[in-house]
């Protein structure tokens, strides 16, 4: 009788560890790439091909030589991949704005806290969008402070 108790406890332990594994391996929502409709109808946009060569940064984009360093979430928010492989980031407490980070190697997606690393980049192509009345996203000029917050851990 006294020998049964440890076995029972061991069983319980295995049971609780398995429960943890089940919680951990819960399927995360499928990371479907997002696409946004841009307000400006400029002739050349990022990803377009000219003379069989790719436009990596177009009007409205800010290209920064990050030299392999990290790029950080400027505020708490959520990161998702878009169709062209860039990262779209929306701040939880900032309505009507969207940030686009292109050129990030193996980005961290999902919920991010302020100052958390999104990923590293060599040439970061950054854009800021503001939502328009018709639901499209317009390129707007980001403040220097905003860009600074993405480049240094806050």
């Amino acid at each position, binding site marked *: 009788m*006294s020998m049964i*108790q*440890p076995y029972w*406890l*061991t069983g*319980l*332990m295995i049971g*609780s*560890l398995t*429960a*943890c594994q089940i*919680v*951990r391996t819960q399927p995360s929502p499928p990371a479907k790439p*997002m696409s946004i409709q841009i307000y400006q109808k400029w002739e050349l946009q990022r990803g377009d091909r000219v003379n069989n060569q790719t436009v990596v940064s177009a009007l409205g984009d800010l290209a920064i030589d990050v030299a392999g360093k990290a790029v950080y979430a400027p*505020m*708490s*928010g*959520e*990161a*998702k991949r878009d169709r062209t492989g860039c990262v*779209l980031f*929306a*701040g*939880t*407490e*900032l*309505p*009507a*704005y969207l940030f686009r980070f292109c050129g990030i190697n193996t980005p961290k997606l*999902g*919920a991010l*806290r*302020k100052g958390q690393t999104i990923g590293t980049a060599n040439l970061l192509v950054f854009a*800021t969008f*503001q*939502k*328009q*009345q018709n639901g499209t996203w317009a390129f*707007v*000029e*980001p*403040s*220097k*402070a*905003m860009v600074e917050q993405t480049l240094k851990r806050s």
Partner: protein
Amino acid sequence: MTQKHRQHSLRVPIVLLVLSAIAAASIKLLWQFNPNLLPIAAFTSTDELQCSEIVTPDALLSRERILKLMTIAEGTNKARVRGVLKAPYCKLKPMTVRAGVAAEREVYPLEFDPKIWAIILYEDDNYVGVRLVPKTQQCPSSVL
């Protein structure tokens, strides 16, 4: 006697091991369920959703006023929006997202669920947008 003693001395470390494993598993489960329940969460949870200035401590947003807000177009003058929403509960830290334009964010807890905050964004005294956010961000809400 000696056999019984040996058996006993063997049982104690096994029970301790099992108990510590259960404790570790419970903490892990608790952490996954709600990180804010553990004191360590102070290092990881966001502390951003904090008012920088309380305006009207008892301000709440009713369903009717939210419905009215939904009919207001972006770009409408702040005074008109405030006429519908009345004074906010508080203001968040001012920030500058667009170059040279101050972003002003005002917060209203919802009357039917005060744990949810409506954050209204104004720029240049014009209404820019709204977002509903759980006040305690225990479960990160999807914004994309």
